[in-house]
């Protein structure tokens, strides 16, 4: 029941819209079906299966908007939710930022759905976790992990005849493998739309090898180092930066994208020339929906070109105020890189630190986007092109903007979270203290 086809969703939305008496009405309908297994100390700790569907109505009289939602779908409930939204709209103050609804739009079908992923059963999950446990048990290591999959649909319709529908699948896996002494720890995480790409056995082997390889780490002095960030570590730093690609906060003077004296840094050379970032909903490795919640088409967009800020995102309201086209941000980004593998990047490094991932990243100064956080689950010293020994974890204080001005080399991008991210060689990365944590 939770996953409706395009036609089924359209039928419900049309029915709900027929109950509306407001000047403008927008309805969204979404559902998900999925399950998970959590394990720790080499045994399953919890497992669950969840199926939910929700309908939300937003009604507007003039510039007064009210919203209500419901998870029951009989006619009486559907009438009730529309009535409730209309009642709340009458009580609401006028919203000076209200934008008139968009009319019909055309969106291409997305690539986000995979039938095999949608067919995952509890047995599939148990088998995938079993493979991971076979690695930790055989090597006398301890595994703690989480496997989750879901199928989702989203549909919107409004009183100006806009309709959009998308269906997607996702499977994600992460595991931390530690040695029994607690002196070594390794981690991997991966997510895909397509189940066939997920190999929990191979991923767990990487985590196990990092757990063994990182045991008995040596302390070296904190300071500025050349680092090789694995794609996961690079992605940890970048996700904080992408939130800043918002034109409104830049225009308002409260973002690292704000320009001294007013305005934004659009068009400025903010990063090294080898930094090129775009998003494309039709990229087969990181597909996304082709429309956003406002009913705006998501199109291929260049955000950074040769280190220059090429675009900032605009909401419909801010675009209207600034006389530009609205441009939604899309987190399925592609950070272009080269052809080198992680191993090749290591080989070309005279002295440096290899970072598996970062942990507990928090903003220290939103003005410079200074972040702090720590390395975790496998940090290694590199000398003359080889990994020499594991090192203790560091705390860093660094800005991704400064980091992307110090790019020495970029490797081949791989799927990391919802983006394609290359391993990166960065000079002068600032580690400020040591941590005893394993």
């Amino acid at each position, binding site marked *: 029941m939770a996953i409706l086809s395009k036609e089924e969703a359209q039928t419900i939305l049309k029915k709900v819209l027929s109950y509306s008496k407001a000047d403008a009405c927008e309805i969204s309908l979404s559902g998900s079906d999925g399950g998970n297994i959590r394990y720790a100390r080499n045994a399953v700790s*919890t497992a669950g299966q969840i199926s939910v569907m929700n309908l939300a109505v937003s009604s507007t009289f003039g510039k007064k908007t009210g919203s209500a939602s419901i998870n029951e779908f009989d006619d009486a409930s559907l009438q009730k939710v529309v009535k409730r939204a209309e009642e709340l709209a009458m009580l609401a103050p006028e919203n000076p930022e209200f934008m008139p609804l968009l009319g019909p739009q055309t969106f291409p079908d997305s690539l986000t759905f995979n039938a095999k992923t949608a067919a995952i059963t509890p047995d599939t999950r148990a088998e995938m976790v079993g493979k991971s446990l076979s690695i930790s048990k055989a090597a006398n290591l301890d595994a703690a992990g989480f496997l989750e999959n879901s199928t989702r649909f989203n549909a919107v319709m409004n009183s100006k005849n806009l309709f959009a529908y998308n269906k997607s699948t996702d499977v994600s896996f992460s595991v931390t493998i530690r040695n029994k002494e607690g002196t070594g720890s390794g981690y991997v995480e991966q997510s895909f739309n397509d189940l066939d790409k997920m190999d929990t056995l191979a991923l767990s082997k990487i985590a196990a090898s990092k757990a063994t390889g990182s045991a008995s780490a040596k302390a070296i002095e904190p300071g500025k180092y050349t680092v090789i960030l694995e794609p996961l570590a690079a992605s940890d730093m970048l996700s904080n930066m992408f939130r800043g690609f918002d034109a409104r906060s830049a225009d308002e003077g409260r973002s690292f994208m704000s320009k*001294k004296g007013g305005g934004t840094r659009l068009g400025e050379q903010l990063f090294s020339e080898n930094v090129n970032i775009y998003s494309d909903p039709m990229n087969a490795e990181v597909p996304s929906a082709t429309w956003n919640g406002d009913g705006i088409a998501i199109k291929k967009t260049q955000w950074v070109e040769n280190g220059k800020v090429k675009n900032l995102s605009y909401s419909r309201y801010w675009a209207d105020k600034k006389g530009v086209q609205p441009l939604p941000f899309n987190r399925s980004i592609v950070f272009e890189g080269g052809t080198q593998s992680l191993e090749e990047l290591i080989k070309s490094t005279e002295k440096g630190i290899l970072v598996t991932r970062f942990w507990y990243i928090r903003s220290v100064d939103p003005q410079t986007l200074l972040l702090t956080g720590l390395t975790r689950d496998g940090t290694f010293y590199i000398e003359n092109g080889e990994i020499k020994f594991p090192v203790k974890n560091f705390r860093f204080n660094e800005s991704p903007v400064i980091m992307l001005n110090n790019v020495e080399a970029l490797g081949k991008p791989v799927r990391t979270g919802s983006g394609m991210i290359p391993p990166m060689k960065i000079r002068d990365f600032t580690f400020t203290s040591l941590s005893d944590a394993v």
Partner: protein
Amino acid sequence: MTGVGVGASLLDSRSVFGRQISVEESLNPVDVKLKKKMADIALNTAKSKGATYADVRIGRYLNQVISTREAQVQNIGNSESYGIGIRVIANGSWGFAATNDLSDESISKAAENAVAIAKGNSKLMIEPVKLASQKGFGEVSWKTPIEKNAFEVPIKEKVDLLLLVNSEAMKLGAKYVNSSIFMVNEQKYFASTEGSYIEQDIHRIWPNFTVTKIDAAGGKFETRNALSAPMGMGFEYLTPKEDEKIKGGPVTMYKKRYDILEDIKEATVHVDEKLKANPVAPGKWDLILDPSHLFLTIHESVGHTTELDRVLGYEANYAGTSFLTLDKWESKKFNFGSKLVNVIADKTEPGSLGAVGYDDEGVKCGSWDLIKDGILVNYQTIRDQAHIIGLSESQGCCYADSWDSIQFQRMPNVSLAPGKENLAAADMIKNVEKGIYMFGRNSYSIDQQRYNFQFSGQLAYEIKDGKIAGMVKDASYQSNTQEFWNSCTALCGPADYRLGGTFSDGKGQPGQVSAVSHGSATTRFNGVSVINTGKKL
């Protein structure tokens, strides 16, 4: 953990949830007789299908949030989430199922599913669940002792208050101001095969604001957040009382009543001072930490560190483990902090976020020592892990953030006991030669075993030869948990004791949030490493 982003570990990771309902609807609780009938259907079905233990949580979770910016209302949300979660032990393993369809058939089916999942999980079992004994309490109830139900206060009154807050800031030259009130009411019903039928009505409130000024010519901006605390209280928290204020220092501080109109005015002036403040000189400083700041350092470095499930490895793949391994506790001489450091775990303190009558597995709540005279003496645990530290009863730390989440170990209030003598903060700073006095929470980060941390505040003042010598900016302190707590050299007295807290401490996979308070008085730490975090792009 708070916030956003990757590893969005641990505070503030939750927005409004559930379905939107009318305000009137939220004021009608579900009849307790109906809840008992539903609970019995679940318990009886579970037993008939082979469960050796079962518990049921019927939860109605209400959230209301009102948020504004400058002269406009951004959002009024009023939501409800209602359903039943059934947890069982069968063949020695846990199973869980939940549904929001509360028909008799659906409840029976969910109970049956929970038993089937438990039996399925038992095939991968290493050892069967050992549950600490717990007597049934029969039909009992508990309520947060509130004076004014925030859900009964008209929306207009709340909107008007927030818009007045914003206009006060704008009058004083603020460029932007956001303000909000977040209100929670958990109407929870717990029943178990051990004979408990527990009804609880739990209330929380959190007013907050952020005021921003811009120095466009210099390309700079500064903000200051409210120095309120999220509380386990009703709307009375927003009725100011003079005897609940601490004045005389550089900042007015609030105990169990908050004056939002006074705080916004001070905050707007503070932002000007922040824009002009001198950068801090990095090095070793004595820190004087106000409870509005220290609560978060306690949360991260003591609260999470003493969670037994983390110590054992159950959170290894997400939040991490803990350096307070069992051998340190067994030794009875692990020096967590200086002799002045006494940390108490508590689920009863009035006004605190953790205060409930019973936890989410039917254990009556109390309080106990975690750190006694600087020594690690105990952890925080629940029924299926109590035996590991030799306890015959649970400490009552079980919580689920929704009817459809599985309950597990969550932090009780973890508070630093104030000093025995009635020292005031104004007197404490008189003896400080070179110090930094910090207020409010800001950036916070700690490693996965809770050794190395870095924190900063909303406001930092330099203390020079016993006197406040002006505001400084870009100050963060870095330390190691054990070293830090051993550098504690003075505590203000009971009259200075206040609660801080968070609505959304994150833990578990899939992630859950919980609300928790941390009390302390103003406290001094000697010779802590302070770094300057100012940079130029």
